[in-house]
């Protein structure tokens, strides 16, 4: 049996070796838990299918496109994002308490979770690897302009940057600025301009030319 003394370095090293082959480790874990009747592989399939096909950044893009098109909806989104987003059918895990923050010519918003990887799953789906990795989590709060450069985004010098560190259970959706030359576009075409990164703040919405 294993001792659980955090100062037992031999134990730590031994324990670490367990994770050298994650494929095998996770398969073993699934087998043990299934044998015990604690999990159902078909449920895991259903979870994966949900996040591969149903819950993703297209949800958020619809929210943004509606906010661009419908001032009343935009106001609702500003006042009660959880309810406004739920009205489009997007609810649930990691979207229970939503806030929407609107970019302006004066202020650019950027979202991070320095402590883990809090992310608005209900509107953006599963977070990308870079969002969860130390480089982004460490630098977004101290050098956001440098981070933006790595995403190819250069803001005017005068634009202020507001970084939202999701340290509690509120989940933030950035509403990017509506690109020029999109007058008269319907919501579905507008949604095609809304990238995942533009809703985190590491990107801007695409121009109609870029989206082509």
């Amino acid at each position, binding site marked *: 049996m294993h001792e659980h003394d955090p100062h037992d370095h031999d134990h730590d090293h031994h324990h670490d070796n367990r994770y050298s082959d*994650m*494929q095998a480790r996770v398969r073993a874990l699934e087998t*043990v*838990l299934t044998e015990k009747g604690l*999990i*159902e592989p078909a449920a895991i399939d259903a979870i994966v299918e949900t996040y591969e096909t149903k819950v993703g950044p297209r949800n958020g893009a619809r929210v943004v496109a509606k906010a661009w098109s419908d001032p009343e909806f935009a106001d609702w989104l500003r006042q009660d994002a959880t309810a406004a987003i739920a009205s489009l059918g997007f609810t649930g895990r990691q979207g229970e308490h939503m806030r929407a923050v609107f970019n302006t010519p004066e202020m650019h918003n950027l979202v991070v979770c320095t402590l883990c990887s809090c992310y608005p799953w209900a509107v953006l789906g599963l977070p990308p*690897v870079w969002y969860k990795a130390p480089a982004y989590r460490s630098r977004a709060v101290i050098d956001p302009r440098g981070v933006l450069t790595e995403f190819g985004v250069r803001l005017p010098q005068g634009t202020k940057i507001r970084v939202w560190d999701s340290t*509690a259970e509120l989940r933030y959706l950035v509403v990017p600025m509506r690109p020029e030359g999109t007058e008269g576009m319907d919501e579905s075409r507008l949604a095609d301009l809304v990238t995942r990164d533009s809703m985190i703040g590491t990107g801007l919405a695409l121009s109609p030319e870029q989206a082509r």
Partner: protein
Amino acid sequence: MNGPHDLGGQMGFGPVAPEPNEPYFHAGWEKRALGITLSCGAFGAWTIDESRHARENIPPADYLKASYYEIWIRALETLLERHGFANAEEIDAGHKLQEPAKPKRVLTADLVAGVLARGGPCDRPVETEPLYAVGDRVRTRNFNPETHTRLPRYARGKTGVIEAVQGSFVFADDNAHGRGENPQWVYTVVFDGGEIWGEGADPTLTVSIDAWESYLERV
């Protein structure tokens, strides 16, 4: 705790590496890791706060070199063992060796859509009025608990302004350790970049955190 997870302002990790057209999963096991972790969360044996704390407790050198789903799996094994569902010996063996504790529920495929759509709201009513109002100046406490906290190190002992009263929520610092939900008011507190980073800070930068009331003192 001052763990490896508390990354704000640390240096040396290099540039951010966005991956064009990034797939949701980079290996088959990552899909299973997601599904297993969510399925085990449905046991009702631990809270999201306890699971975050289990991740933070991974030794720093291991945490920083692990991929995110590896962090999840390492923490999940800790939780499974702590709550009597499975131990490392069984996972090493790849087979059940003993009877598990009884979970409150098992997530079967027919329940998945409902469970994911419901999520786990953690707003809770409190009896008290909020101590602070929008526009108030507050200072975050300077503490270094060995237990779970959601006040990042870079934002401790700093003066900022209450920008929003966001409602009352389960207090993560207590809930992570089975001390109850003890809900408190949560505020968005915004700091000037210079207050946090001092000399050389980006003058156009403001940073906000969402802070439970007990993290704050009036200035």
